[in-house]
């Protein structure tokens, strides 16, 4: 029991460090969860599937030959197996979604929603040609559920099941060059498109998606990526294998879809405009007042600074009710719209954040040594010149930091924005609610938008962290 004082201290220190790091992990977990959720599927968030989904490796097509077996799965996986003992020879994955295949003697054509058309040589399973995503322009790639591909003569006929589902696009089979669209031609080329025929076989648990027979052997591919070799003579399963599971589905696409699902770009623009102008006006007015308060003791200065502090005590809604009614009334009287315009909300924001700005800026001005200004005054500078050439440049870092802080506060403001903006001037906090509501439940997009709304704040804050922290803590420590 003879642990020295220093050893004991060291051990305590290490334990505290471990506790601290564990707490740090717990603290950051919700933020990590936000970013992680933004890469998931909306349904997965709702049902509580924690892991990322893997692409389903349903076996869509089996092409048996004498020696080899070509197995094509829904995740874009092309497997080449030995026919005799079902040993894998080659495996290539194209990581496609909504895949469909067409196979002839020399080539495999893949049609997919995310990668477009791909032409693969059967000899070495290498891609020879490709044609970017089929679905372009007005088509939401995430909503393409099925593609169909067919080859007749030298043309490829491709259809994708979304919106313009009746159209069939025609491509050149050799070079994958786009030729033309055939409107309303789907019924002719793909009468059974989108229907996966599933059958049940004795002894096979899953539903059978594809079948192919070759020399008395029947190959059955199931929805879970299992392949059964079935002897037709003895009616028995001879062998079975399971394909490798598909690639992880990280939905980076959420970060593109969020701008289309609701008009998030507009809300971002509104937020930037409103918060930017608020910062600008609040800083200009507050700088003058803070300088006056920190340098002069004039009759009424105590009352003025007390009034500034007292405003912090008044609930926001107490301003909001009269201001809302004033806005409505003013518009009814004069015909000039105020509610739902930029100037209206900027005016209110500037006034609302003014007292707090003055309070912080006062500390920055108070930190500037008075002697500098006194020296300038003795040299014959006017007060205005002293303010402009001596005090202002010295306080500028503080003003910038305070301005940024006010920007972040305005970025975070919801109650005024909710009432005083309309569909055209909505800021992010008001607009972000639209992702989940009456006609859509996109948790994934909402989390992506939340991440996007957080990023500028994080970047700005860490760039100016030191100044902001100094401004905020200065008042408290001095008491």
């Amino acid at each position: 029991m003879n642990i020295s004082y220093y050893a004991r201290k060291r051990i305590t220190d290490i334990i505290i460090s471990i506790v601290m790091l564990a707490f740090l992990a717990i603290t950051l977990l919700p933020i990590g969860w936000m970013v992680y959720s933004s890469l998931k599927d909306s349904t997965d968030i709702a049902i509580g599937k924690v892991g990322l989904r893997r692409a389903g490796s349903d076996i869509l097509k089996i092409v048996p030959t004498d020696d080899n077996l070509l197995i094509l799965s829904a995740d874009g996986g092309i497997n080449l197996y030995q026919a005799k003992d079902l040993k894998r020879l080659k495996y290539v994955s194209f990581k496609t979604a909504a895949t469909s295949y067409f196979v002839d003697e020399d080539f495999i054509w893949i049609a997919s929603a995310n990668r477009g058309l791909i032409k693969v040589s059967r000899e070495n399973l290498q891609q020879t040609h490709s044609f970017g995503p089929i679905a372009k322009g007005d088509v939401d790639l995430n909503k393409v559920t099925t593609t169909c591909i067919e080859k007749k003569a030298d043309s490829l006929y491709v259809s994708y099941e979304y919106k313009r589902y009746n159209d069939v696009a025609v491509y050149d089979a050799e070079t994958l060059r786009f030729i033309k669209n055939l409107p309303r031609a789907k019924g002719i080329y793909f009468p059974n498109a989108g229907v996966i025929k599933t059958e049940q076989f004795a002894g096979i648990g899953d539903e059978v998606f594809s079948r192919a027979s070759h020399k008395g052997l029947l190959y059955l591919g199931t929805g879970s990526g299992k392949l059964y070799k079935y002897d037709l003579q003895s009616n028995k399963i001879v062998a079975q294998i399971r394909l490798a599971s598909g690639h992880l589905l990280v939905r980076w696409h959420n970060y593109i879809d969020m701008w289309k699902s609701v008009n998030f770009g507009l809300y971002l623009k509104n937020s930037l405009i409103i918060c930017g102008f608020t910062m600008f006006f609040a800083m200009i007015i507050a700088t003058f007042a803070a300088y006056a308060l920190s340098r002069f003791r004039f009759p009424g200065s105590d009352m003025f600074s007390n009034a500034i502090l007292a405003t912090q005590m008044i609930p926001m809604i107490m301003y909001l009710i009269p201001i809302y009614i004033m806005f409505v009334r003013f518009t009814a009287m004069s015909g000039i719209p105020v509610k739902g315009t930029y100037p209206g909300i900027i005016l209110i924001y500037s006034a609302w954040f003014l007292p707090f700005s003055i309070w912080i800026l006062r500390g920055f001005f108070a930190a500037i040594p008075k002697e500098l200004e006194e020296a300038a005054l003795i040299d014959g500078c006017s007060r205005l010149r002293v303010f402009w050439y001596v005090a202002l440049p010295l306080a500028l870092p503080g003003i910038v930091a305070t301005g940024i802080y006010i920007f972040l506060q305005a970025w975070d403001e919801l109650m005024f924005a909710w009432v005083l903006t309309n569909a055209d001037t909505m800021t992010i906090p008001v607009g972000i609610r639209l992702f989940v509501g009456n006609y859509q439940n996109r948790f994934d997009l909402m989390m992506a938008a939340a991440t996007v709304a957080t990023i500028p704040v994080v970047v700005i804050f860490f760039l100016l962290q030191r100044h902001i922290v100094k401004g905020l803590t200065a008042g408290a420590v001095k008491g």
Partner: protein
Amino acid sequence: MKNNNSNLWARIKRNRFAYYFIMPTLLAMLFLHLSPIVQGIYMSFLKLNQFTLQQYLLAPFVGFENYYKVLIDVNSPIRIGLIEAVRNTFVYTVVVTVGTLAVGMVVALMVNRKFFGRPIVRTLFLFPWIVPTYVTGLLWGIIWLREGGLVNVMLVDWLKILPFKISWLSGPNTIWAIIIPSIWRFWPLSMLMLLAGLQTIPEELYEAADIDGAGPWRKFWMITWPMLRPVWFILILFGLIYNTYSFNIVIMMFGFGAGYPGEWGDLMMTNIFRNSFQLWNFGTGAATSVLLLIVMITIVNVWFRYFKKSEELR
């Protein structure tokens, strides 16, 4: 008397530069702070709803009827919701204020030691505080989800502490569902302030205590906590004010900005907001906020007086 007046006039004249400088602020304060507050107090005596909205201040004057509805009338639906909101706000404010202070204090002591990577750890600890409050609300709305929420998945599926998934966003659990995110969001500010305070405490005090043989617990309560007095005074004061007026986190968490927090999650602000801007009862809304303001002024005054008194006792 005359001398005094001319003296005042002379002081005003000497400082006329300061008056020019505060003029814009003064105007803004008059028109956009004082005038709405006075109007708000007057509106609490008016029957102001969507029908009389256009009459503005000429709406029918009803005296204390709004206050009667809010405080006394047993049959008024506003009062029923309000009692719950008051209870929730009280619990929420006290727990969140004390919680942020406690967590902030513990972490501030932890990161005030010397260890490898201290600046990075300090910065990372600030992260929750940088996340906007509306994002906090949305994010925790996802975390509390009944089926898919992280909390239920962890408690039920991974740790198997609970036998079944419980609903966090309805029923009595709601109060915790709003308190925990708020503490999570606001404690880094406490840490920041307390850390700045910790660095002003002279090292000699601790050395002296070491010589006297004081343990860490005693050192904390006899040196650290009293020395941090101005910091936690401000933190508790601002905590009381901001948490009583908390709105964003709660409103965004329920129905992601569209829902009603329920009788265990409704706060004063959400209650008044719903009353005013969804049920269009501006009169009662204004009356409730006036009452809230009176309570707040009382609390702040009591806290100041207590602080001054204990300062004198020292």
